């Protein structure tokens, strides 16, 4: 799976980090930073959860 974060839409809620902290981090302004663009299959469910709870719908998953 490939993860894409739309930084311009991100509101810095940190929900993605709470859902999968090895895949997402936040910069000093709170904007999401991708730690892994292609997370492993084991992480897929948590990453999907992160995309689902993102209040700004800023996370897209391909594949």
């Amino acid at each position, binding site marked *: 799976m490939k993860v894409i974060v739309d930084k311009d839409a991100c*509101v*810095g*809620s*940190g*929900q993605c*980090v*709470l859902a999968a902290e090895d895949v997402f981090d*936040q910069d*000093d*302004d*709170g904007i999401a930073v991708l730690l892994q663009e292609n997370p492993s299959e084991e992480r897929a469910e948590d990453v*999907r959860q992160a995309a*689902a*709870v993102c*209040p*700004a*719908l800023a996370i897209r998953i391909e594949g």
Partner: protein
Amino acid sequence: MSATPENVVIVGASATGLTTAQHLRRQGYEGKLTLVGDEEHLPYDRPPLSKQVLAGTWEPERVLLRSEDALAELDVTLVLGQPATGLDLGAKELSLGDGTALGYDALVVATGVTPRDLPGTDLDGVHRLRTLDDALALRAALLAGPKVVVVGAGFLGAEVAAVAREMGLEVTLVDPLPVPMLRQFGPQVGELVGAMHRDHGTVLRCGTEVAGFRSSGGRVTGVELGDGSVLDADVVLVAVGSVPATGWLEGSGLPLGNGVECTDHCRAAPDVYAGGDVASWYNPHFGTRMRLEHRMNATEQAMAIASAIVGDERPFAPIPYFWTDQYDTKLQAYGTFPDGARVQVLDGDPDERAFVAAYLVDDVVVGVLGWNHPRTLREARKLVVDRASLDVAS
């Protein structure tokens, strides 16, 4: 517990409604899904309306919650531009505006809220902000370079005041309470919000009621305040709160208090669920009934409803999350912020306008608020999860 229903009807085709549909599919629900909405638009998101859409930095299409193709994949029947007008719990039937009836095995109520009104405000130039059409109308009005008065200094009024001010307009923000966002975050933080607006050149008239409107030829020309003064206005936004959109449910037998009253499993009656802005439920984590008008809650409650429909019996006990953007400031909050809670700064400095504060009731953390301090706030959320106790003035 009944078996998984074969025909789910969701009323309210917005954040809560669409997310419920999405999560039903994600959980493997293969039955019939119908999404009924009174707006003509495909489901769209509201938070950008008072921010990017109003400011003109996003094209309106960008607020769609899902593209048309992605919607088709979900295999939902969309009934748009059609209000639900009544509910027969016994017959398990919904009546629609065009007089037809729609049967269901499980029903989800996700009709959100409707802006509260001030008397005598059907004048031209007086706006509300709830829908995409409202946002586009308000933006068009602001582009004419008017004098703007915003009535109501909750998050919505405060956001619009900030956008209008950043467009270079003369803006006055009026509220009967002494500081902006008092109801959300109490007097100390409200004071800081007020100072931020004044720093950006927005005029604040807090602690003053609106007594009436002045008009000429059906168009608003001014706002009369309780102290006898009059503010010139070409455009007025009324943002004085909202009421749950439950009118169509009156007489149905569903428990309607402050919104549709649900159990901690989002259930309002057998096979009837409610979520999002319209629903009130008992949150076991805080030991209190709540109704939230927050974007994250729409998603989380929708997920909980979808799970409940397919048979997961976990109670819905979220830590509420809310954010608002005003000027260059991002305010974020986890938990609850009751009247009279003690506020204790945990990190940063309010004078520097970057801090995290805890809200305590009986020395237990019930909420944490971050002012341009997102990462520390995320860590502080744990205090709310753990119901941590903090000693006075550490």
